[in-house]
């Protein structure tokens, strides 16, 4: 190890120790006495929020809300909207509606059905795969499958018609190579040197 390396490593080690001490110094001591919080200087500059409860993070509630669209016009689901930017007035109300329905003993599907009954089918983030909506789900895949099948069919048919013509030239899977002179082989070697595809 050179002297320069030694000095550099020593400097890095010192910087690392200093950084970890700074980080430790910044770690706050818990203040259990301030659970209520101190008043803000300008409370009007931030949104007022209710205390988050365990139910707000309930995976079942989250899954229900991810199936339902917020009605504020954002195109997001209720869960994403109510946890985004926090300016929406609609998604917190819709969230409470979901919680109320759950409190009333409704299953997830029943909650979703209640929302559809109230707001119409457009409250769903994706249309149910039934009736005309099936066209929405199936048409793209069917179109691609049909096109792929058509290409495949054409290629297989063409391969069959071309096979007898190719047979005299080659009995293998590929066409026979043309006879190459030494000069041509040299040219080809140089071309391959470029590894062109």
């Amino acid at each position, binding site marked *: 190890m050179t002297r320069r390396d030694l000095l550099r490593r020593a400097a890095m080690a010192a910087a690392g120790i200093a950084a970890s001490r700074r980080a430790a110094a910044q770690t706050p001591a818990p203040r259990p006495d301030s659970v209520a919080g101190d008043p803000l200087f300008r409370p009007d500059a931030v949104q007022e929020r209710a205390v988050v409860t365990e139910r707000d993070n309930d995976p079942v509630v989250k899954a229900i809300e991810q199936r339902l669209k917020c009605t504020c016009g954002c195109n997001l689901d209720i869960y994403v909207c109510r946890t985004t930017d926090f300016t929406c007035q609609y998604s917190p109300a819709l969230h409470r509606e979901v919680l109320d329905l759950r409190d009333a003993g409704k299953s997830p599907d029943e909650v979703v059905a209640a929302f559809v009954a109230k707001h119409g089918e457009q409250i769903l983030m*994706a249309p149910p795969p039934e009736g005309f909506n099936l066209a929405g789900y199936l048409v793209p895949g069917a179109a691609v499958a049909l096109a792929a099948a058509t290409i495949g069919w054409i290629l297989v048919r063409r391969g069959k018609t071309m096979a007898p013509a190719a047979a005299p030239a080659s009995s293998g899977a590929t066409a026979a190579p043309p006879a190459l002179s030494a000069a041509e082989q040299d040219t080809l070697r140089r071309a391959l040197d470029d590894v062109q595809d």
Partner: protein
Amino acid sequence: VTLLGQFCLWLALFTALWGAGVAFFGRPAERPDLARIATRSSYGVAAALAVAALCLWKGLFAHDFNIEYVAQYTSRNLPTSYIFAAFWAGQKGSLLFWATILALFAAAAQAVTSRRHAALLPHVAGVTNVVIAFFVITMLFAANPFERLLFTPDDGRGLNPQLQNPGMTIHPPMLYLGYISITIPFAFAMAALLSRKLDTGWIHAMRKWTILSWLFLSAGITLGMWWAYVELGWGGYWAWDPVENASLLPWLTMTAFLHSVMIQEKRGMLKRWNVGLIVASFLLSLFGTFITRSGIIASVHSFAQGYVGTFFLVFLVLACVLSFGLLYSRWPLLEPEARLESMASREAAFLFNNLALVGIAFSVLWGTLFPIISEAVRGTKITVGPPFFNRVNIPLGLFLIALTGIGPLIAWRKASTQNLRRQFIIPVVSGLVVLAGLLLVGIRDGWALAAWALCGFTAGTVVQEFGRGVRARRRMHGEPVWSALGHLVSRNRRRYGGYIVHVGILVYFVAFAGLAFKVTTEVTLSPGESTEVRSPFGHTYTFTHLGVSQYAQQNRFVSAAALDVRRDGKSFGRMTSEKRQHRDSFGRNTFEPSTEVGIRSDLREDVYVVYAGSVGGTDRASYAITINPLVMWVWLGAGILVAGGLITMWPGGPVISARRRSETPAGYEAPLIGAGAAE
């Protein structure tokens, strides 16, 4: 400045119409003087629109609030960079931006195109002039950026807070550059059809424009994802919003074109398909603009005002009828020079690749329009959101990754069984190793497993291709590995630049699959209080609320909530998320409070913190905390993709002429290949 700006718009309109008229009706092939006039009109239009653009910028920087656009999108205390960017913040300014950039591109196309393709240039000028004239007419009659108010307000309304982000200065221009530059390849395609010069000349003339346009679009879309991620606060980067979808559509068709054009260059096939893809890309770029500006589909991005949507719809229909009509009229001139012979050929793989790309484009378009179709058929409004798009597109996306890996492994014309076996071993093993590794670490999400395993397979293909190329060079020239790699790439920029682009796409897909493991939780904390969140990578993050500080800045009042973060007990630093109340120069609130997200990224996962608000007007704060796996890979993928694209379009490199194509018996299994000289 408004008078000068208006004058320049009219001047640009008349010059564009005159240039187009001369190009289309002046028989430029027989009259070189008229051909010169047509091509030079592009420079005149560009100069006039550049002056008009400078006039608008002058108005913005002078705080001339008597100009309606200036009053609508700026205020006296708006930071300078955002005054500059306010040019494209609204409908009217963005139309002027679009027209100006298109005019500059059109002039550049005239200036830099090789004289070998001079015969195409008058028609290229004609087509670009028509498109520019449309934008200028839209401005003059439906959305004039120089419109004045009857009174002068004390201050402007200011810029929407979500647009006050560094992304604003770069994302919209980049996306516009992508959309706009599609017009140049389209103009070359139309010029080739109009002049009946349908050999591969027009493809060579516009190939780099297509790659440039594709790169701008790729960068613009990714910057949009980045902006959505850092600014909107929902912890994601792609929401399948109609306007996002609209930007993806031309990208998909252009990607398909960049692949299928190789078949035309090498085998003289798919000529009609290629013209169709370029026309479709141009029309889809117009369609995207129509969606954004018409309000026909609900989107958070749209800025529908007045009759602009109607203008776009009429132009879209006209462009569709005229361009496809022209293609139909030249159909017999676009006969293929060769035919597809086998399913086991690179041509077939490219064809299926095109099918997957166009299929995804179709499914995205179908999903975007399905609410309108459903309402028309059933009279019922529906929503087509991410669950729909994910369900339909994930299988197609996986099919595409597989083809990305398969394509380079198959020989042109027809591959032998031996060739297939030799080529596929390493990629397949590579994919299986990735799959086994993921199963061993306990991942059970089927889609993510499939995506990552296919990425492993395709990565194996790319590594194999590079490895064989390097080995061949080392054997031939005795070069060291890095030198061989450098020469390999520099002498075959299209091929190896393309492989690097593939790596970029794979890295994107790795990131997309990571979304399946996102963790979000909400919490309310008093100062000093902590919460723990476990990440998908098994780390335990401890968040301790430090407090909320409030202070004034140039055009806003900031409330910043701070968290001390520890990962597995070790300090991870301090994270801050802000609420910003924007104000005008008189201290009046201008918009609802907006949120600034706190983000800490590394290669594995992002810690994403949003300050939701406070409880009872105190410093007791609510947060949304998200652990987002592999997000950095999206930005990494973009970097790799752009680097690969730049290598591909770097000047120089071989061009395959029609003569050489006809002389080259592609696909013969010559003895040299069997001897392993190069594969």
